[in-house]
Structure formats: structure tokens, C-alpha cells
């Protein structure tokens, strides 16, 4: 069952007076519960694709459909609410709120509005997540008192706290050493299996890509490979080449 669909999505950036195409019109779909890797070299458009799926960047043209909802034309307020309810984010630089401790950072998204977690279950749920990411002894520590791996674990717990349908991770291992990076990917995979959350992460690390169920490989803003469970995906909107207008 599809949870994400991009239809001929394009993204141009204006650099001074020059329009630079970052994504040249891509279409693909992602199945619910998949562990998806968006792979490609630097500048290939991985982050832009993730940002469009994450509704923090709006395509110049084309459509982004998330959880059956066409997000085109939604106001900033609606997009923010939708992000909060449906999506979780993990960033390359962890991006924790420096003045909040581990527990408060994880709790933060719950305080921003309606979520799928009933209020009386918040504490148990946060405690469970802290246990899952192995930071039980660090709950009162501030981000600057944690290692890079620990910070990314906090970010994972924060991304999951609202029980989102999709978690987006932009190069989650790029700022970590390889052993820690592997642990983080293993953790994400474990959570993906346990609670069936769709994980989409971008990476240029080939070893990490191999763990994914679904690999979308980009080069220069176009899809050059779209493979799910080892098979090329054809039809159902997935294409391997840019669509010409």
C-alpha cells in the first residue's frame, strides 16, 4: 500500500538571476512500512527530495501525495500541522534544541498539538523510546553533554515520539564514525521492523544502502535506479528518467 507518491516533481532554485534545476521532474512511489534509501552523490538532489516529501520545501511543479493526501496548495499552517501529525525528522547535524535535556527534547513534538499518543501515555511512551535508543541513564543531560551517536539516538526518539507514519532521515550517519553509523542504521531498521514506521533516509554510503528494502538512486536531479526488494520497479508511477515537459 502506497504511503508516498511523487508525480513529476520538479524543484528549481534561483541563484541570483540564474535558475538552477535541482530535481528535474521525478515520479516514484513508496510502500508503507518500507525501509527506503535515497542514494546518490553529493548534489544529486537527495536532500531536496527528502525536503519535498517532508513538506518543508514545496516543488516548483508536480505533486506530492502523502498518506493519500495531495499536499499541493496547502497553506503553511496546514503543511506544518500535517508535518507534525504524519512525519518525523532526523537530521545530519542532529539538530536538538540545546536548552532542553534528552527527555524534554523527545517530549517537545508532543507539546506542539494533537498527536496519535494520548496525553496519559506520554510519559510511558517517552520512557519506552529512551529505553529503545539506549539512553536511559542520560535523560537529564543536555545535548552538549552527549556524543554524536547519542545525540542522533535522541533525534531518532524525537522523530518517533508522535508515532508518525513516516520518518525522514537526511544523511543520519554522515557526522558519525562508521561503527556508530552502523549502530544508528541498525536501530532505525529495528524500529522499522517493530513498529512498522516507514523510514526514508538519504545516504551516499553504499554499505548502508544495501540494508534498505527500496533504493532510489539519484544523479543530477534524476532517478537512475528505482529498485524494491532487488527488483526494478516499472509502472505505477516509478520511472527511471526525468519526464520532459
Amino acid at each position: 500500500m502506497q504511503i508516498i507518491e511523487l508525480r513529476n516533481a520538479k524543484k528549481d532554485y534561483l541563484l541570483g538571476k540564474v535558475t538552477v534545476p535541482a530535481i528535474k521532474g521525478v515520479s516514484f512511489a513508496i510502500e508503507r512500512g518500507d525501509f527506503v534509501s535515497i542514494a546518490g552523490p553529493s548534489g544529486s538532489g537527495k536532500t531536496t527530495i527528502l525536503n519535498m516529501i517532508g513538506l518543508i520545501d514545496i516543488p516548483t511543479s508536480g505533486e506530492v501525495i502523502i498518506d493519500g493526501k495531495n499536499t499541493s496548495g496547502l497553506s503553511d499552517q496546514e503543511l506544518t500541522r500535517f508535518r507534525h501529525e504524519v512525519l518525523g525528522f532526523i537530521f545530519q547535524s542532529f539538530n536538538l534544541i540545546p536548552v532542553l535535556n534528552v527527555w524534554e527534547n523527545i517530549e517537545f513534538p508532543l507539546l506542539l498539538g494533537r498527536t496519535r499518543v494520548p496525553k496519559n501515555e506520554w510519559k510511558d511512551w517517552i520512557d519506552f523510546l529512551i529505553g529503545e535508543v539506549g539512553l536511559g541513564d542520560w535523560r537529564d543531560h543536555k545535548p552538549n553533554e552527549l556524543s554524536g551517536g547519542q545525540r542522533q539516538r535522541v533525534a531518532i526518539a524525537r522523530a518517533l515520539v508522535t508515532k508518525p507514519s513516516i520518518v525522514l532521515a537526511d544523511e543520519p550517519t554522515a557526522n558519525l564514525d562508521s561503527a556508530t553509523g552502523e549502530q544508528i542504521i541498525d536501530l532505525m531498521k529495528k524500529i522499522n521492523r517493530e513498529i512498522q514506521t516507514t523510514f526514508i533516509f538519504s545516504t551516499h554510503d553504499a554499505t548502508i544502502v544495501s540494508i534498505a528494502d527500496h533504493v532510489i538512486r539519484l544523479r543530477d536531479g534524476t532517478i537512475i535506479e528505482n529498485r524494491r526488494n532487488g527488483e526494478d520497479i516499472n509502472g505505477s508511477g516509478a520511472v527511471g528518467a526525468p519526464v520532459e515537459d
Partner: protein
Amino acid sequence: MNMVLPRIAARNLLRQKKRTILLAGAIAFGIMIVTLINGFAGSFIQNVSENFAYLMGGHVFVSGSEYTPSGKRISVIRDDSVIMKALEDSGQKWASIAKTSQATASLIFEGKSVSQNLTGIDITHSKMLKERLVLVKGSWEDASQPDAIIISQSVANKLNVLPGDKIVAQLQTVTGQNNVGEFRVAAISVDSSIIGSRMTYVQLEYLNNLIGLGKGEYMSLGIMLDRLDLSDGFATSLYTSMKGNGIQLFDRNAKQESTSTTPFQAMISEQNSETWSGTKYRVYTIDDVLSQARQIVVALDTASVAILIVLFAIVMIGISNTFRMSMYERIREIGTMRAVGVQRGEIRAMFLYEALFLALAGAIAGIVLALVIMGILGLFSFDPQSAIFLILKRGHLSFYLPPLRAIGNIAIIAVLTLVAVYAPANAAAKLAPAEALRTVK
């Protein structure tokens, strides 16, 4: 209300301790200056009024005016029974009343001379005088003699007199005739309320005799109340009551229609232009006399508001720039918050909370600092003879900060700070999340 945003705002202030201390310090300094001015202005009118009330022997006054056969206007109350009846009829309470006559005289002793205002009062029965005047030499018993004069320590020093010495007074009668009298120094006083050092008291009957007033007559009836702020209400009741008793009165409301500088001047100027027969009375309060002092207070308050605005215009430019810088420093944090579901308005609110906490902390610190300085300044005592004696309270500078004024100042600072921070807060709120997250600091 989402309490996590104020919590983050407060912690952000604590995170940047140096910056916060500098900004809050600038606010505190400004508020401190303004509070000191307000505190001074607040007590100024009260001290001046209380000191004048004592100097003039009352909070509310009744004085009479009449024309002599030669057409000269003199100040006199010849029969006060109608006033006393009106006082009783008014149903108001008072602390004490004093019947007084005044004359300016040169006091002469062994070739030395001092010009003094003589206040003629019933020394023997004046409770107010005995409560406030401390005699350092002589006695109240001696002061009960008909020709007794109580002079202050400074006058005694200037004339080099001691109790028992006889001094000569040169003065004029109410009709303008020169006259000379002789007084016996009965006592030398110091006065706890400072003003007393400038006062010279003699027996009313004796002074009346010298200035040409008869027995039982006097110039002014002073009514001392329990509190200064009761004056206006009391005067209005007394005026109404006197009018009801058919007494000829000068209009108390003349001031409203006049173009004169002060209401009291307006009243006097109107009275000067009138003619009448018999005795016509006027009722006035210490506030009417001191309306110019009130104008000083208004000027001080206006100056404090102007200072507040100028000082804070400068401070606010600094605050606005600092918050703009802070926004760029936290740009990824803002991007992250927006990504996880914080709305634009909430980002704006977070910065505004920060500004509000900063303003409140600075303003409260400034007021506390000002109160401490007021306390310290209040410890110094000033020379009773100094020119500022009228604004002193028992020889000390005193301050009164009306609570509403303090709250108002805090509110002004809070609003100004919010206005200063609104532009950077709005810029932060308008940041596109992807753009904010892309920014490399």
C-alpha cells in the same frame, strides 16, 4: 497556552548570560533613572504640601477681606461665630484649628536686626504648637505671657539674645501705619519639622494690638486635618456649608474660567477685581496655594517620560540588533522547530516571550536598584537652613513611588521591548524551514 515555548525562551536567555546581563542592565539603568525621578516627584508635592501646611498652620483656610472707609482692602475675620457654625454644620472632622494673624517685622536687639514673619497665635492654648515646637531654652510657662515671643535658634544666634531679653519689633498696622512694639524673649525653639526654624511666634492678642486689629479678631483660620488628601473634600463641604449659612464668599470655581497661570492666582485675581461691602470670605486649601508646585511635579513627570522614551529608543536599537543576531545564530534551531511542527506564530511568540522576560527582569532590577538608592539617599540629613528645606521630610530627602507609576513604567518598557523585537521575531517566523535548515553558520 503552550508552555514549552516560554520555557525555551527563558532558557535561551539564561544560555546567553553575558548578553542577557548587558541588555537587562541597560534596561535596568534606564528604569532606575526614571524611577528615581518619579520617586522624587512623588514625594516632592507631599513634602512641600506638608511643610507648607505646617508653615501656614493648616490644610484648609478661611480668610476674610473687607474695605476700610478709606478704600484700602484689609485681611481680617472680625466675627468667626458664623464660620464656626458652618464648620459644625459641615459635619466634617478636623484635627485642630488655629486662628492667626501675620505681620512682617524687623526684630531689633542691641543694634542687630532680623526681618521675620511674626505669627500671632494663642500660644497658651495651641496644642499644635506644643506638639511640634521643641524649646531648647525658656519655657511654655514664660511663653504664655502677653508680650512673649518664641524665636528660633538661628534668629536667637543672629540677634544674640537669650530668654528674658527684650527686643523691639518694627512693623506696620493693617492700614499701613508704622508701629513699634516690644517683646520679651520667652523661649528659643528648634522644630522637628524644619519649617519651625523659620517661624517666630507671638501672642495673637498682643500682635493684633500692634497691627490694629481688635480683641477676638484675626486674619486667617487654619484647619489642620488628619491627612493632606482630605483637604479638597473638606474645603468643598465647608464652602457649601458657609454658603448655606448665607456667608458672603468668593467663588471657589473661578479658577476654571480664568486664563491666569495657576488656579490660585486666578482666584486671587478675580477677587482683586471685585468690590463688596462688609466681610467677604474665601475658602482655600494648601493645594490651591501650591498649584505651582504641582506644575513642577507635572514637569518632572513629563521629563521622566521623555527620558524614558529617549533612553529606551537607544536601548531598543541595541536590543533589536541583538535579537536579529540571535535569530541568525539559532537559524537551524528555528528550521528544526518549524520542521517538527512549530507554527510561524509560535516562533514569533517564542522570541517575544524572550523579549518580555528580558524587559521584566531589567525593569524589576531597575526598580529594586532605584529603591535601594532612594533608601541610601534618604539616610543623608540636610541643613535645615538650606534652600531645599521645603522639599525635605524631617531634614531628609524622601521619595515616594506611586505603585501605578512603577507598573506603568514596567508596562512601557515591556511594550517598547516587544516593539523592538517584533521585526526580528517576525523575520524568524517567516523563515522557510528548508532554507533555515540549509543555512551554514
